[in-house]
């Protein structure tokens, strides 16, 4: 069970109150977590990753275990603590604007 914490705007868009719990098949990576998330909540497609290229949107970051994973390969394994559900995978709107 992987826990995903979304920013407020995306929780509203997906009609979610709190964090999301996902059963991810196979190896847990950014790509597999986001694929599962988007399959469960299709309205999130395009809001975290580009719909065509699947590149992370410029002002979205991925944090976990006090680390910024945004520039990790989307196919790199996520930390064990995220895979076990001890720590959440955080999708964060970058601090930008005013």
């Amino acid at each position, binding site marked *: 069970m992987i826990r995903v914490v979304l*920013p407020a*705007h*995306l929780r*509203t*868009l997906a009609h979610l109150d709190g964090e999301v719990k996902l059963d991810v098949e196979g190896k847990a990576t950014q790509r597999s977590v986001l694929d599962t998330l988007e399959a469960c909540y299709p*309205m999130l*497609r*395009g*809001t*975290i990753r*580009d*719909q*065509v290229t699947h590149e992370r*949107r410029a*002002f*979205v970051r991925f944090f976990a275990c006090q680390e910024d994973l945004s520039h990790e390969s989307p196919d790199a394994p996520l930390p064990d603590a995220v895979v076990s559900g001890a720590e959440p995978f955080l999708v964060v*709107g*970058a601090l*930008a*604007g005013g």
Partner: protein
Amino acid sequence: MSTVRVLIGTRKGAFVLTSDGKREGWDVSGPHFGGWEIYHLKASPADPNRLYASQSSSWFGQVIQRSNDGGKTWDAVGNKFAYEGAVGTHLWYDGTQRPWEFARVWHLEPSLTDPDTVYAGIQDAALFRSSDGGQTWQELAGLRTHKSAPLWQPGAGGMCLHTILLDPSHPGRIFIAISAAGVFRSDDAGKTWRPMNRGLRSEQIPDPTAEVGHCVHRIAMHRTRPDVLFMQKHWDVMRSDDAGESWREVSGNLPTDFGFPIDVHAHEPETIYVVPIKSDSEHYLPEGKLRVYRSRTGGHEWEALTKGLPQRDCYVNVLRDAMAVDALDPCGVYFGTTGGQVYVSADAGDSWAPIVRDLPSVVSVEVQTLP
């Protein structure tokens, strides 16, 4: 008695303003999609309960929302706007060529007859159509692949397709406008396109009378006379009497002919409205006065409409999609400002009153007249 529903898009959400035919007391609902930029929302002429909204954010990109109950509830529908085939290049601010890149949906134009068909004008400029209520979108790529496209360039707000006019008398005829490329017309439902910019003169481009490259801010038509078009260009108010084949200037006695919106009275095809702005480098009202100008002669002769509008210390702007008319008699005219005010005139512009004064900056205004 009729009901009027005014759909407001702002920098921080959507609002729906409702009144009866007197247009005096208003119910305000919103913000819908709070915190998101709502460039445009518009109802289907074929089903007044079917609304579409363009919701976007620099962080989270583009979302399209659809309502089937007049805006009470909304569902996110398809938001995949993929250019068809090879993505070409267009002119960039520095003179180099730059690949097309999707940024946002500026304008949604529902079909005149089918609630499930809707057109989307996007940045970087292209036209998309959905025929399944917004679930999927297909590009009408004949526009973006027009041979002139490498000469198109962004205006200050980006290279946006901001205006879509569907001709009610000629099935398959569509007018669009792009800043800064100009007006294009299709007579075959969007397969092929021709530039419609003859008569425009823009000193900001190397060849002032070039076929494309003009910063057209808005075009408008009266539905009973679709061969007559009115245009607010970057500078100049223009008119065409031959479906865009040629244009002539009708700025006449306007204090400045720079501006963004232009619209036509619901029952008088020769009565048009603009809001002059000081200049291209000073996007606010001249002399601190909020004045709508009305011409009852299809241009040339203009009168300032000021009753009920602030006449001192007012320095807002009125954006291109932020003016609309209702279908009542007398015709109601509405506009929103970058200062968050929405004004209504229930007497075709003779007098004005604010509906709301303190919304976020207004991007778009549309009006539904309901039985």
